């Protein structure tokens, strides 16, 4: 009797926990939609997705910030992915067994650096450096991309490394035994076998880059203007919300919610994409007998 009661209790508790989480998520989406409605109603989608941000004149365009988000994210991935993949290959294929753990620890430590620290280093070292080299203000998409690259490298490296390690060593052995070089083996056997995992790693890195706020805010400018070059100040969706949140009311405040909603939808689209990519995983099929 006691056992049955306890079973029942455990089930209920778990159910409630699950409900709370799902409800929480639903509430987040609900509030974002509800709070953005005034902006969509009063300003209209055309206004909201225009490139002019001038709340005083009733202009609430978020295109600049959307472009800023996409550009810095793309930049971070373009700079970070090759390095991260190279590092993952080094860790799995080249590094001697004993130093692998050491390098892996290093990568994990890099993942633990608070973003404010990276932003601060970017602001104090990277931006002045770019300023000197380019003669511009120094802040902008380039600086933000570099900071984001540093942030996504640990994520992409760790997950790509796991994907590469999951490739059965018999594949590499078969390839090497046929006289393929190590590089040919990596390129023709191991990378293709791990490609689903590597794609998932890049998408996860992308998710991290899209949502990053603080570190980007410190090196992006900020300025609500279209970037004219990689080193001209601009804004991203996240940094714009950060800057405006304290002092906005009415439609302006609602338009910030609309930006948040766009960001949320981008993130959800990424997760859906990742599920599709890693759902079709055929990286490590068992050899069927």
């Amino acid at each position, binding site marked *: 009797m006691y056992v049955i009661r306890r079973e029942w209790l455990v089930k209920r508790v778990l159910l409630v926990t699950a409900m709370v989480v799902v409800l929480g998520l639903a509430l987040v989406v609900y509030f974002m939609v509800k709070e953005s409605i005034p902006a969509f109603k009063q300003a209209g989608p055309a206004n909201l997705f225009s490139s002019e941000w001038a709340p005083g004149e009733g202009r609430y365009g978020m295109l600049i910030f959307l472009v800023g988000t996409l550009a810095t994210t793309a930049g971070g991935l373009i700079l970070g992915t090759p390095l991260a993949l190279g590092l993952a290959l080094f860790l799995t294929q*080249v590094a001697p067994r004993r130093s692998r753990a050491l390098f892996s620890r290093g990568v994990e430590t890099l993942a633990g650096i608070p973003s404010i620290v990276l932003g601060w280093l970017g602001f104090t070292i990277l931006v002045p450096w770019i300023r000197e080299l380019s003669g511009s203000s120094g802040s902008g998409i380039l600086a933000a991309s570099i900071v984001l690259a540093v942030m996504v490298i640990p994520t992409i490296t760790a997950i790509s490394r796991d994907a590469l390690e999951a490739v059965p060593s018999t594949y590499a052995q078969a390839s090497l035994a046929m006289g*393929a070089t190590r*590089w040919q083996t990596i390129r023709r056997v191991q990378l293709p076998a791990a490609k689903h995992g590597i794609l998932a790693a890049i998408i996860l890195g992308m998710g991290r880059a899209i949502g990053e706020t603080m570190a980007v805010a410190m090196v992006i400018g900020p300025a609500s203007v279209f970037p004219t070059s990689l080193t001209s100040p601009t804004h991203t969706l996240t940094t714009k919300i950060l800057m405006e949140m304290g002092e906005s009311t009415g439609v302006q405040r609602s338009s910030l919610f609309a930006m948040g909603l766009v960001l949320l939808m981008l993130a959800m689209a990424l997760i859906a994409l990742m599920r599709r990519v890693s759902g079709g995983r055929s*990286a490590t099929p068992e050899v069927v007998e």
Partner: protein
Amino acid sequence: MARIFAVLGSLRGDRLLVEAPEKGITRHRFPARRDERFDAPGEGIKFHIRDLSLFYGKRKVLENITIDIPERRITAVIGPSGCGKSSFLRCLNRMNDLVEGCRVEGEVLLDGEEIYGRDGDVTSLRRRVGMVFQKPNPFPKTVYENVAFGPRVLGIKDRGVLDGIVENSLRRAALWEEVKDKLREPALALSGGQQQRLCIARVLAVEPEVILLDEPCSALDPVATQRIEDLLAELKEKYTIVIVTHNMQQAARVSDYTAFFLIEKQGDPGRLVEFGETGALFTAPADERTERYITGRFG
């Protein structure tokens, strides 16, 4: 750190080698002597092995193996588990190089050339000495791409040439009739026996001279095993075959020569006890230990 640079160096070296492909797929830096002896099968010695010892770190795995592997014959290597027979096989195409801390002493001559020589080129050695593993290990690619892998690595891009090599290799591996309509299907969908013959076809596609098989039938059922054994009997017309097997009946059935390896006691290195014509070794073993093993009294 020095080791890292060494490995990076080898990576770069390998790539340079790939970028200078010659035409055809039978390109060797070693003198290829097979063709000269083509009309006199079995007369030559493919591998001269003298005082071969193998170490994994400080542990001696093989000691003073001296053996001649005859050309275009099937040589079986038998012995109890852990006697070093697979390690011995992996010395012949330098697959042991992949094991960290591995060291080889003695001479291994392939057609008179030292394969562990200073300028021994591992990739071209492995093209001449192909290997089939214990568990079938096709790549997670299509049947076609598995067989075309080796030729592609050698730089062959022409579709027609590749098609020809794929069909020819599959025919020689006695697999063509079963897979000719499934060339675009994943290799991992084939049965275990078919996968193993696919792995043999994959090796044949680079035109090796020697085929090493490491217990190739241990994961297969008797029917699939029979097919592989029949195939080996056909392949020895053209190839030198060395097969490691824990199955003495198999050794007696398929091989022309048999080598018996043994470790005396735990911790000892593996040694070659007896080597000779299979018929003689199984009917009248010269060594008492061989007799005890083949009559099933130990091992």
